[in-house]
């Protein structure tokens, strides 16, 4: 019997999917940013594979939010805030973008002592950046920040 060589094609599973048929511009931007970050960097990929959390991000000055549902190597992005979130980050557009510019320092911890970090810390202290569910989920926040960071 003739044998056929069948090459197994390694199909890379999709890292990011969108729950809504028409993702909002904000959802597409965050999903695209995370996908690019994770695809390009092994250390971010490791974090992405380990993270199980449902993170809400709400941009106060455009009144729009998304829910990022991380499931150990897969992310589903929902338009709007969905229930059962592990944590929710609320801030204006500039602050949300600046979260992506936090540097990651020793032991994989975000750097809060440079210009960007101090700005974020000040907003947290003055209530312009609010993180619901922060205290029991500090490690989760650090992991999300590492995945989110473009630095």
């Amino acid at each position, binding site marked *: 019997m003739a044998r056929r060589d069948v090459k197994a094609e390694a199909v890379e599973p999709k890292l990011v999917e969108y729950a809504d048929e028409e993702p*909002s*511009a904000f959802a*597409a931007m965050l999903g695209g940013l995370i996908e690019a970050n994770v695809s390009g960097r092994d250390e971010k990929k490791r974090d992405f594979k380990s993270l199980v959390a449902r993170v809400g991000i709400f941009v106060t000055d*455009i009144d729009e939010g998304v829910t990022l549902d991380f499931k150990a190597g897969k992310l589903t992005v929902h338009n709007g805030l969905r229930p059962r979130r592990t944590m929710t980050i609320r801030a204006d557009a500039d602050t*949300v973008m600046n979260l992506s510019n936090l540097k990651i320092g020793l032991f994989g911890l975000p750097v809060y002592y440079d210009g960007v970090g101090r700005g974020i810390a000040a907003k947290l202290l003055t209530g312009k950046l609010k993180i619901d569910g922060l205290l029991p989920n500090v490690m989760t926040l650090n992991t999300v920040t590492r995945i989110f960071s473009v630095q």
Partner: protein
Amino acid sequence: MAVKAFSNEWAKEFKDEVNSSSVYKTAAKGWKWTVGLVVEAEPDKNFPESKGIVMDLFDGDARDVTVGPASDAQKCDFVITAPYTRWKEVATKQLDATRGMLQGKLKLKGDLPTIVRYTKASQEMTECTTRVAVEWPDET
């Protein structure tokens, strides 16, 4: 003196504004990609044809800014597209460019991590557009 919106004179003034901004120079250190702005036509606003602005930006300097067909701008590394009215809102500080992008009012094409890394530079560039006195075609 005011210059016609998205004309060659506007491009020159805009380039001069960018090059005189110390904030931009610092924030854009390391930037080495071209940026295209597509201004979509709105005939009812007396802006009958789409235009493309091509910005050759390098390491904190605007080496060249030219106005031509939209197709030229679409070939750039980063392309931001919006109708004429939206760009006018950005240039008159009625619309913040970051918010506009998150809301999909300005459509961005290009490597997202790179553009996010240079958020401050792009914000200052937007500020530069607001400092150019412009004669808007729908106001003349």
